């Protein structure tokens, strides 16, 4: 069976500089929830950005394929690629406070994709938006549709963004640390909401996070990223039982446990980092050689 999303040997680099993603391969099946974990700077957000076509201007894809529904997005003409992404994929962003346009009302920010890209009649798009706002447990959806973002709380805005992500019934949603910017009390609700929406719509979810606790609650499979490379690709169950890669094991050991509140925090051992580093540097030297 071919996967919904199939990323093959994707390399992304700073223009004229080092690689940020090094031959990353990653597949997501229809309806699958895959966690993408790693520490800051590991490149986990970069994968979602490359796939959605929103890499920063200083960064470019240097190698590889991103197959969505079997077509390589990187080989499609730009307009067709944008349309395809808008139709089949969506993003739940990290910071709900900055992800809504302050100059537009909330309603049009949910319906815009439906009306402008998918050519739905406005009335149908608005009815759909009202349904979605009810689905994400927003009381009085009609009023919220007419509100400006600054009139809503952070949690409410993230609910709006989740509704917006599901608007076009996409096959794949990238959730880029969707709870990081939220209040701890709201985090749990939003997490539960994303899981609930995913289950109802059978949408595949690529869940980018640095929080293994979140992964254990939401995901079925996960990819562990370190220094721009996937070091482990496994099911959540196997990962927590017996992580395969030494870095994964160290990462798991470093997670603070509620069962042992007095225990000191365990950093990832220097030896593990050094081993992975050496591996990275060897690969990078080889890549640079191949480029010349």
């Amino acid at each position, binding site marked *: 069976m071919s996967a919904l999303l199939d990323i093959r040997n994707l390399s992304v680099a700073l223009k004229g500089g080092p690689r940020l993603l090094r031959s990353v391969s990653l597949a997501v099946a229809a309806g699958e929830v895959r966690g993408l974990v790693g520490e800051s700077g590991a490149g986990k957000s970069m994968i979602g950005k490359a796939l959605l076509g929103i890499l920063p201007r200083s960064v470019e894809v240097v190698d590889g394929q991103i197959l969505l529904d079997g077509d390589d997005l990187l080989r499609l003409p730009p307009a067709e690629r*944008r349309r395809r992404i808008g139709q089949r994929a969506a993003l739940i962003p990290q910071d709900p406070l900055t992800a*809504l346009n302050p100059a537009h009302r909330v309603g049009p920010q949910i319906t815009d994709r439906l009306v*402008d890209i998918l050519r739905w009649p406005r009335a149908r798009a608005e009815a759909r938006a009202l349904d979605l706002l009810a689905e994400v447990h927003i009381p009085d959806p009609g009023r919220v549709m007419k509100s400006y973002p600054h009139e809503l709380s952070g949690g409410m805005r993230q609910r709006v*963004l989740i509704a917006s992500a599901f608007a076009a019934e996409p096959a794949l949603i990238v959730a880029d640390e969707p709870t990081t910017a939220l209040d701890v009390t709201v985090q749990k609700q939003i997490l539960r909401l994303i899981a609930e929406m995913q289950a109802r719509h059978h949408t595949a979810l690529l869940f980018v996070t640095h929080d293994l606790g979140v992964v254990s609650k939401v995901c079925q499979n996960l990819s562990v990223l370190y220094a721009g490379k996937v070091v482990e690709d496994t099911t959540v169950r196997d990962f927590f039982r017996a992580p395969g890669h030494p870095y994964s094991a160290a990462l798991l050991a470093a997670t603070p446990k509620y069962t042992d509140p007095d225990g000191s925090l365990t950093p990832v051992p220097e030896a593990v980092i050094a081993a992975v580093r050496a591996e990275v540097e060897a690969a990078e030297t080889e890549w640079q050689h191949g480029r010349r």
Partner: protein
Amino acid sequence: MLFLQRLLWRLATTAVTLFGVAVIVFTVVRVVPGNPIAMMLPPGATDADVARLKALYGLDRSIPRQFLIWGWGVLHGDFGTSISLRQPVLGLVLGRLPATLELASMALLMAVLMGGAAALTATRHRGTRVEAGIDVTNGVALSIPDFLWGLLLIIIFGVLMPVFDISGRVSPDLKLPFTTQFYLVESVLRLRFDITADLLGHIFMPALALAIPLAAIIGQVLKQSLKETMELDYVTLARTKGYGETRVILREALRNAILPTLTLVGVQFTFLIGGTVIVERLFSYEGLGNMAIDAVINRDLPLIQGIVLCFALIFTGVNLVVDLTYAALNPRLRHA
């Protein structure tokens, strides 16, 4: 209702501003050397003649007392009589004001169109040679003042390729069937497009001369603001929805990026109105500014006072409009 409060507050501060301007102008024109009496009398006039004329215009009294008399008149709609033209100041100013307003508005329109187009094009092609070219053009446009642009335009469109009129507001042989002084507006309303064309031929160069530096400022500030906005999260999110670059700029970024530009345009527009004084002179355009220069040359005190008050009123009015537009464009301020 907060909107109304804001408006009333602004009107109150406007009154104070105008009073301050009146005091300063009134005093300054009386303290600087040169007086209107000397301009009016032939050489060889006796001291007695001077004294008699001074008494006639009330210039023999103390400055505070003169101010009170003049101020009392102004409050009753009497701005005095022009010494050099021997007509009521109010009528003279109101007769010329429409010409200047039309010129300034035309210049503003041109500046917004040119500056806006430059900013959007540069943003669309940011990081390329197109942007660099627009930056250079903006720099050149900005470093040459409006009256020099006027001279350049006269050389280009008046002498080398005489397509536009260099002098006056309208061709003198045209019969104008108008009841107001807003020629341009009225010619359009009356569907006399032959006159509209003639008026445009005359207003084009002075308006362009005034517009070029302002267009450069608008272009530069709006571009900067657009480029910053283009990096924000909600713009990135819009990209994932399937919008192309142009749509993203116009739909997501422009409305937010326009706010800082608007404040600046308000301030710069008042400078532009100041610029009409010399540019009107340059093109013999029969507006307020041209009359102001004559008034100063003739030491026509009541006329200078009237014109300056009128300019002050325009400045404060422009600022008020900018404030209100800002509130209308920014939903966060509307209810605050």
